[in-house]
């Protein structure tokens, strides 16, 4: 009874806050609602018995990604109201398509039939005798090692992309060079100039 109640509360808060993310006028508010969505999803993970994923979601998405979003939104000062101004023209057609899709989804949902033995085929059932992290590790570094490595390659490409598309080498920029600064000797730092009387430094 209690898990069911918790599920409905969390699911409802996830859906409502996700809706608010899209409709909020103020972008800062939208990001805050996004954080609520992440928290609700983390709660759903806990209900499913995936505590580790729930914690990761909170730490990575709430702690890092959403806060980064918040910074970007605050720094860029985007006026979402003007951005959205043109979108009302597309509302009738877009809404109609969305409605048709939703109706189709509902029809399929009503006719939901899982294949025989689908539950048995689940590739990684929630483990009973070990904790989440050990179970995930055993899967990711053994059975799914290929996926893990491929995901690493995708991240490498993303990193290269960020560097290739944004890094610029500018000439004449003074940079700190610790090694050179520390190794400076008295001879190159201090110049003793013999100033002749009556002429000054010219």
């Amino acid at each position, binding site marked *: 009874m209690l898990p069911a109640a918790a599920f409905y509360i969390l699911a409802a808060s996830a859906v409502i806050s996700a809706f608010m993310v899209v409709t909020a006028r103020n972008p800062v508010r939208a990001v805050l609602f996004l954080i609520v969505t992440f928290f609700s999803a983390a709660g759903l993970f806990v209900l499913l018995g995936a505590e580790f994923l729930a914690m990761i979601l909170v730490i990575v998405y709430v702690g890092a990604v959403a806060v980064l979003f918040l910074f970007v939104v605050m720094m860029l000062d985007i006026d979402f109201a003007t951005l959205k101004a043109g979108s009302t023209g597309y509302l009738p057609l877009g809404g109609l398509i969305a409605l048709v899709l939703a109706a189709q989804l509902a029809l399929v949902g009503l006719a939901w*039939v899982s*294949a*025989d033995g*689908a539950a048995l085929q689940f590739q990684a059932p929630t483990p009973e005798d070990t904790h989440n992290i050990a179970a995930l590790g055993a899967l990711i570094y053994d059975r799914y090692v*290929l996926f893990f490595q491929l995901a690493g390659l995708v991240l490498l*490409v993303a990193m*290269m992309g960020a560097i290739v*598309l944004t890094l610029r080498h500018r000439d004449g920029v003074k940079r700190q060079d610790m090694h050179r600064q520390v190794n400076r000797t008295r001879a190159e730092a201090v110049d003793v100039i013999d100033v002749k009387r009556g002429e000054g430094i010219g």
Partner: protein
Amino acid sequence: MTTEMLLTDLRLMIPELMLAIGAMALLMLGAFWKGEAGAARLIMRLSIGLLILCAAAAVWMAGKAEGTAFHGALRVDDFILYAKTVIYLASAGALVLASKYLETERLAKFEYPVLALLAVTGMSVMVSSNDLITLYLGLELQSLALYILAAFNRDSLRASEAGLKFFMLGALSSGLLLYGASLIYGFAGATGFDAIAAAASEDGAKIGLLFGLVFMVSGLAFKLSAAPFHMWTPDVYEGAPTPVTAFYATAPKLAAMVLVARVLYEPFAAMTDEWRQIIVVLAVLSMAVGALGALMQSNIKRLMGYSSIGNMGYALVGLAAGTALGLWSVLFYMTLYVVGVLGAFAVILSMRRAEGMVEQIDDLKGLARTHPALGWSMTALMFSIGGMPFLVGFFGKLFVFYAAAEAGLWWLMLTALVFSTVSIAYSLRVVKVIWFDEPAGVFEPAPAGVALISRTAALATVALVPVAGVVLATAIAVSS
């Protein structure tokens, strides 16, 4: 997983390992090599060599290596190895086209070949994927690298726009694909192709699986640039640097087509009648958009964009057959298409005047008089891509149409025939400009690599005709 198991699995993915490790080694080399221009040139050459080595490895594996690796996540057989060989060679050709261009346009950075290698790794994983997760990771690896290459000329507004447009629509299509994949996983209970095939052969789960499949095919159609998911194609073709366009007009198209074919033929083989409807709609729309859109273009790169949309349509006609013959016809068609398009882009890359690159169709005026070899090459290539008898492109189309007719899709074949005649019209327009208009000026001499590819591809449109004839005759003999 024991060491022996790991080694057996790794043996099946030798080309991918070579590519991934080679790309990372070259990245390190580039990062620590003194002097940017020298590093770019060296790494470009090494990458081309690596791709040719990979093609050799794939050829060597053919007939010897067959089976699945990593608990069924990856699959290797002769069909897949053939596709991989073509992908590696086409990518090597695209890099040859790029090397001189990048230097003259001040874009020579060592990241270009490294990103191209990573994109090829992605394509390679894509074509051998045997699991929805492998499929997605391969696709994403390939597309991310291509988005970056499209925006590689970051100081050009058009290239940045092309990259951004490509990225946005690509992200949307990945979303569609993932949504479909999650629905399929929900209905089948597994992500492996074999398990999905087992679930698809049962009656009860078909509606759910079909719903997921519709989303997945829509996502893949974006990558194929099949209508109605083609909007990005002409803009990206026009905006991206020409060698980048040449790169993704060839190998990624073939990889995406092979991927679509494998998804439809392996896990969803039991649902052929259902997915045929989707493919037929995509095919007819693509042929129409490609043929009619290409008639109105004045920019040769945009023309190639529309031509690629149309050609994807013809390939889908063969796919709609749903038979083994259809599968081979698609692969054959795509191979000939890749050769033709690579040659056509080599000609486009030769269009350099003293003031810089030009890319209008009108700039080709009188090419046959000013540069006879280039004029002949472009004529042969345009006719071959358009499907004019009796160049190889015609045999590719004939094979595809034969496969469709064999499967009883007569009206689809007739529709394709009509659009095929329309598509000859735009090739004729280019050929008319080349042969009958007053020369508009001369081009600078093309770099050796570019000239070699344009001549070889043009020769291939004629020289491959006997091969195409034999393939077609064998196919007809086997099927009847």
